[in-house]
């Protein structure tokens, strides 16, 4: 597995930053220069270079705000995932320095310096690339979506959070357990998934202090106006995060947080137990299930879990590999088959706008051709089976032991999904 991502100034071609993942050599400057060069040259030929695929790799170019170009190279993943990742990385840059700074580019060196803060975030984002080999501990990240944890205590925490919200006078707050959202306010859910994801990552990255107070821009909601992002650690691995204006100060917030949650440490400690299963222990799920991935597309959240109940798993995929399989299944099967990917739809829209009415008439047959809705998908491998079911907004992907009969998967998935979405306590 390997991935490179680097950012260059689109006018001058000067490098802004460069990150890599996996045990690989850094790209020499000349190579980066050439990769940027072809993109630049293409522009002069009325060509906008999008991506190139090789046998195992995928290379993507993406220009933002006509000022920076991101170039990504990754193995083993689909083009769509790489593209989404690059969008997330740009959002990350905006989060730290604001869109104006990127647009104006008065001083490249200053921008470079400022962007150093986002390196840990970019590195974490790179973890969401699907590489098919368990090299990091973060192999559960999914691009463009925020991870959640489903505790039985979620409901209680939600109540606590709402009272805290009134004290702090912020609509945007959430409680993170190991960086996964356990409870969040309605307004928090109204943020763009990328924003939520980046804030969760920001809260957990380089966690050496108990509290943080970082000025941030919201890439979608407020790319020009900065907010304060404040986090306090309540008990180890549990953080409360909020977006605030100039007041109250960090000290006041710390104080308020202690007051609010003082009496409920037990609840919190119990909730932390849910990690790393991310999924209430009391749920008795089928023995054949090795892992589940639950996704709500409208709010951009997901929950991924490996089922530790499994005992006889010697033959089946190793524990950490399970999440990888689930993620690959989601990227490759669910995204590519069941949903026409967002990029293509956008492109089609763009073309539609540009062409006249005549071609719209011709387009109709393709609309007819697209008149299908994906419901279910599965694959069977020598070593495991995966099954995904779509019910309204929710998608449940389940990783099964290879012994399970194919016809049974559907029923088990259906049962499991219904059990989760009907539970009020975990608040999915």
């Amino acid at each position, binding site marked *: *597995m390997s991935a490179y991502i680097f950012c260059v100034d689109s006018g001058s071609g000067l490098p802004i930053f460069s990150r890599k993942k996996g045990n690989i050599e850094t790209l020499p400057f000349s*190579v980066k220069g*050439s*990769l940027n*060069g*072809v993109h630049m*040259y*293409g522009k002069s*030929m*009325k*060509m*906008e270079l*999008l*991506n*190139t*695929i*090789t*046998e*195992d*790799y995928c*290379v993507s170019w993406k220009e933002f705000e006509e000022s920076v170009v991101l170039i990504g190279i990754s193995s*083993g*993943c689909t083009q769509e995932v790489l593209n989404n990742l690059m969008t997330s990385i740009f959002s990350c840059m905006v989060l730290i320095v604001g869109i104006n700074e990127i647009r104006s580019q008065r001083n490249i060196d200053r921008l470079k310096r400022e962007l150093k803060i986002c390196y840990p975030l970019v590195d974490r984002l790179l973890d969401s690339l699907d*590489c*098919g*080999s368990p090299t990091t501990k973060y192999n559960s990240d999914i691009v463009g979506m925020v991870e959640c944890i489903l505790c039985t205590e979620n409901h209680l925490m939600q109540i606590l959070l709402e009272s805290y919200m009134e004290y702090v006078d912020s609509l945007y707050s959430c409680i993170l357990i190991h960086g996964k959202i356990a409870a969040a306010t309605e307004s928090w859910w109204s943020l763009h998934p990328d924003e939520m994801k980046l804030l969760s990552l920001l809260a957990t990255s380089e966690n050496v202090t108990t509290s943080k107070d970082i000025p941030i821009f919201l890439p979608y909601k407020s790319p020009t106006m900065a907010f304060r992002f404040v986090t306090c650690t309540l008990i180890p691995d549990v953080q409360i995060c909020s977006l605030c204006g100039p007041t109250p100060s960090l000290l006041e917030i710390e104080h308020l947080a202690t007051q609010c949650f003082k009496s409920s440490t037990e609840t919190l400690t119990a909730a932390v137990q849910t990690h790393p299963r991310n999924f209430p222990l009391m749920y008795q799920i089928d023995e054949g299930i090795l892992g589940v991935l639950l996704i709500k597309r409208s709010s951009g959240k997901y929950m991924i879990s490996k089922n530790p109940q499994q005992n006889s798993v010697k033959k089946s995929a190793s524990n950490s*590999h399970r999440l*990888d*399989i689930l993620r690959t*299944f989601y990227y*490759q*099967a669910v995204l*590519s*088959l069941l949903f026409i990917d967002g990029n293509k739809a956008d*492109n089609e829209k763009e*073309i539609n706008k540009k*062409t*006249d009415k*005549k*071609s719209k008439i*011709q387009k109709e047959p393709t609309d*007819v*051709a697209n*008149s*299908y809705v*994906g*419901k*279910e*998908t*599965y*694959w*069977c*491998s*020598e*070593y495991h089976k995966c099954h995904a079911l779509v019910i309204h907004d929710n998608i449940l992907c389940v990783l099964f032991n*290879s*012994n399970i*009969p*194919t*016809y049974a998967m559907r029923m088990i998935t259906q049962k499991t999904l219904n059990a989760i979405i009907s539970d009020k306590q975990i608040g999915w």
Partner: protein
Amino acid sequence: MNETRQFSDHSLCKNENNEVSGDEDWSESSYDSSCNSDSDSSIPDWDSSVDEKTGQVLYIECHPFVTQTIRDDKKDKEKIFSRNQSRRSTRGKFLQLLRRKEVKRYSKRNIKILDSESHNTNKVKFQDFQEGEEREVTLKVLNEHVLRGNNLVETLLGINVSTLSDGMRLMVAGFLHDSYAKYERNIKIGDWLKSVNGLEVNLQNINTVLQQLSGKNEVLIKLQRVAGVEVTKDPPINILNNQSAFVRQLTSFTTEEDENLQELCKLPFGFAYIATDKLDEMGTEYQDIIYCYPRPVQKNTLCNSKGIFLTLSHLLQDITKSATKLTSLFFDKILCHITYAQFEKNLFLLMLPEMCAKPEELEAIAAEISRMLIFTYDTLENCFKNEEIQHVDHIFSMFFKRMINGGQWTGELKLQDGISGIPISDYMFEDTLPAVCTLNLPNEAVIQIEDALTELEACDYREWNEEPLDCQRIFTVLGSAWYHSGYLLASHLTYEDLVDIHFFCKYQGILHLSKTEPVKTLILWRECFPTSCRALTVPIYKLPEARRYLLIVGSGKDLLVVIMEAGGSTEFPEVNAAPDPFYVEEAQATLAHLQDLGLPELADRFIEMNPGPQVTIPVASSNKKKLDVLNFSMSAKQAQFRDSATKKPEVTSILKRRSNDQSQTIYTSTYSLSEDTYDVHSEDSGSQGCGSELSDDPVAGRNGDKKNKYDSASDESGNEGNCDGSQMSTNSFDITEIKQMLLTETEDVRPIQIASGTVNVLYHYVQFDKLEGILLSPPECKIESPVRESVISNFRRCCQHIHKIFQNTIRFKDMSSQEMSKSMINKSLIAIKEYGAMFECSVLEDKELKKNKILYWVVGRLFFNPHIREMYVCYNDAIPQNMIELAFKLNMGFCESRQ
């Protein structure tokens, strides 16, 4: 000359002896005519279209009109004569000996080519026909109209014209309301407009002829009444062009009008072949471009931006250690893709917009084109040499034209609307696989076909000669295949060659021709370079130093494809050898024999089953009535059949029927399999323990059954004692009898219903066997149904994706452990063997039923035993289907569900 004369005399007397019930024998008629004419008797019709330099032939004669030859315009008679003589002299005794015996052969086979006969009679009819009278009419010209514009006939003469059935000759179709012509008694609708002022006119030259009339008040037009009978006439070759537009497109090598090419240059279409080692600071800008289309180079989009692709190609190779495959970009706001292929030092680039081909499809297309070019020219370097350029241009011009017209072959290169005028092509899947769509015929027919092809391949001419042949042959036949209407019916070629030929026929438009237009005669001959005859990487055996030739003969919708080898065991090949008439006749005779057996009719019957018992058309489930109509006959039959046989479903009954005398072990294993699988319905396909066991089972079962099938088939024929394969060498059977028998015997034979259950739920299936180059899929369905279109389109989209995922598994299987550790392959994708998805489709055609949704599955499965096969099915959710069971039935081919 003398020799031939002698020969034809000989033939005549032989024929008299053998003539059967006054039927004109083919050989006789041909020699007859040759006797009467002064020219060399054995020069066949197509001889004039033999290319002088290369010996290639492409000769297409359309029904029932006039011959069109392609390359002969410049040639004079003398040249042909001398070449013929020289050829004759260089060829050995072999042919002379054979020629003498030819007649015997024909009489033996009892072959009569009906076409030539009917052609003759047609001629006669015309000459006698009273209604075909010609008339001359003087017409006043409406000169006040402006003399510009497209329709001069209308403005000048006041006549609406259209063309006669040949697409070239003009026919009076109507009159303008106040024209002089309307009141002229001698001009009738339906008349053939022959000439204007003495100049012969047709669709192509009418406007130019009429333009010359400006200023005149009257014209003399000549008409001929056609009145119900097609006028057939042998006009001077090439003056009356009777070909359909498509045949003209296939055979005319004239380059496109410059204007259109200029238009094409502005759009993201293009092909380029670039040398990567010739980059030179000093050289001119385009010196590294070996070939490009469209030209000129300066305007070709790909050539202009070649820097991008050259850089990416080698840079990404360096970074990722894997070959660059495809680049996507926006060109002028149009999403398009460029695919790469590296051939040693040269780069092969093909660019198409997304609306014409999706990325995976483009990759497949590029692979097909390069394979086709290599098959035709040995190497890509050869094919872009100057002497071949015209032909290659023609291939690319046809290809891009087809792409612009949304996959339609017959379209024009019209680009007035720019990119928006290009229809969006649907998803492709079956067409992109390197395999040939095959039609399974009943065993009785297969035996006949195999027999005929084998006899052709054997080249066993001993019996025709009393004295032994003591000389070498000119060609050995490496293999042959028979296509009907675009479907492969039988092949004796190695699978690589079969796929080579398939691509060749596809890109030369020959397959499309055989699908859409029955031709009278088609002859194609050229040197070819089949994959099986390339230098082996592991030299298991030594390939003879020889040349191979591709011979395609066609008649009606049938194509017989033969690869012949000269050299090795035969006489040493001539340079650029033209086809030998003897071998061409031999192939034609085989084809005619197959046709006489009624096999094309049989194949047509299978092709035209709409949609046939194998698949059904998607209908919403609540729509009971409709469903019944569609499935009634079949399901009723099935039910009846089942009742009479066993209570178990049809798998069992088939097996029972077939395995009367089969060894018990195989019987039980297949039986238990089918029973098991039926009981669990969607049987698990991947569980490690029992899964592998199961996937082995059907193989054994199938093989056993196949063997059994042959057994029973031969038994049958033995009992009846007459449809034995040897009818060609024994005289005792009349072909018409065999034909009758074959057609009646197979009348009730229908393809098996593949899906289980009383109601057919299978919408579509594709089985792709890469090793054998065979694709099984139901014949094209001609019933229009938007739901079906939508379902099939989605099926193709999914299959393309599933196919891509399966490639990981296949690739990983072939990897050595060393490669494995180095490879960047996604480890979660290495062992996937079944992949399915379910979709919901709303009923579109009926508004009342809008609420009813159809739920259907698209499932792909990879089978490893006995060799890798991919199978894709699309079926309704109503009854769970088991892939193993489906594959099992599909491979059994035919259930003789006779009543």
